């Protein structure tokens, strides 16, 4: 039980870190030139 709990907490930390990293890289607020036309929220909106 304790092992499952630790695994759950570690997975939350890991998945959150991955999610934040992806958001940081692909957010439309990221001013890096490579981000201008990459997949981003702006790009998704532009499909409508």
């Amino acid at each position, binding site marked *: 039980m304790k092992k499952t709990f630790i695994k759950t907490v570690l997975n*939350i930390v890991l998945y959150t870190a991955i999610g934040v990293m992806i958001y940081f890289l692909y957010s439309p*607020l990221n001013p890096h030139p490579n981000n201008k036309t990459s997949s981003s929220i702006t790009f998704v*909106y532009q499909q409508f």
Partner: protein
Amino acid sequence: MKHFLIAYFLPCICAVFIVYLIATNPSVNTKMFPEQKQENFDTYNYIPNFNSNAWNEEQFLNDNKNTIWILGSSELSSPSEALPFRFLTKHFPVKVKGIGHAGNQCFSIYCQLLANEDRLQDARIVIMVAPSWFESKSAEGTSSAVFLEYSSMHWQKKILEKEGEFADYAKKRIASLYSELNSPGLELKLLNFEHQASKSLFHKAIYAPVIATDRALFTQKENLLPPRTPMFYPDMSLVVTPDSINWNRLISQSKSKVLSMSTNNSMGINDEYYNEHIRGNTGSVSSVQEKYNQELEDFAMLVSLLRTKKADVSYIIAPLNPYYYTDLEELSPTVEKIKDILDPDDEGRPSYLSFFVSDTSAYSKAILTDVMHFSDHGWYNIDQFIALKYNLDK
């Protein structure tokens, strides 16, 4: 199965929720993506384009009491020290700022001003009008690429929120550029759809669901993107050399200097430019009839906008070299039409300064450095006009 749900599925749901909270929190976003501030404030004396730069956009038409705005196209890219935003800023207690590079024609300027129309009253603005805008392909109006360089998503949104004759015209013109836009944003789509919907009741019915959907998405986008962080704008110090300008001497000296740099041709063209581009050749203009001249219509709307919003505006009509362009009389009716559009100001002084002549006998060879760009002599004449118009000498 239970172990999988607790150890993998539950963390996944939790992570999505936490990332959502982070991504929608403006203060976290501000820290993650700090707005890049311009370090050297003096560089704002001239900017080639806005290019979505929040700092430059916020500064535009700000502090009108101490600032004169020069809007134009390629002539402003010159490195000459005689350009008003360099010369006048150095010698008078006024900030002169130049905006524009090649292609920044009437509709581009119109959109920049329309998006900021609440700042136009009494704003001191000088529009550099180039006759070459109104001939050949340029007469089709501002290109879509140039329009996007100067009108960011934020300014398109401002135009979208406006109503009336001027906003309708902007929507109509954006709709005409729409097919050239690669992957247009929601703002541009709505501007286009609203113009299409205004054509008839039938169009309105057809476009209603599309507009409603895009409006809903637009609201979501607004909620998602944090507002632009308010920035501190330090006032640019006015560094003034306390000397009075002897305009007559300055203008005559610059004339002699410009003429001394034109020795290998009789056209008054700078030697280097002549060797590189002209070499004895002549050019011609391709005039466009008024009813097909989109640029002329854009110009009339630009003048009307500035007049309606009571801007303190003046216009400089640039010349073309009549020794190089041998058929300039073809462009004369267009230039006369431009002058008709520009009425005298309230005090009876002409609100424009025209250098355009089609006849070589009336042309001063030192005004231009090549076939269409001002020399130092030309710029000093313009500096004097601006200084007189806005009482900088007092």
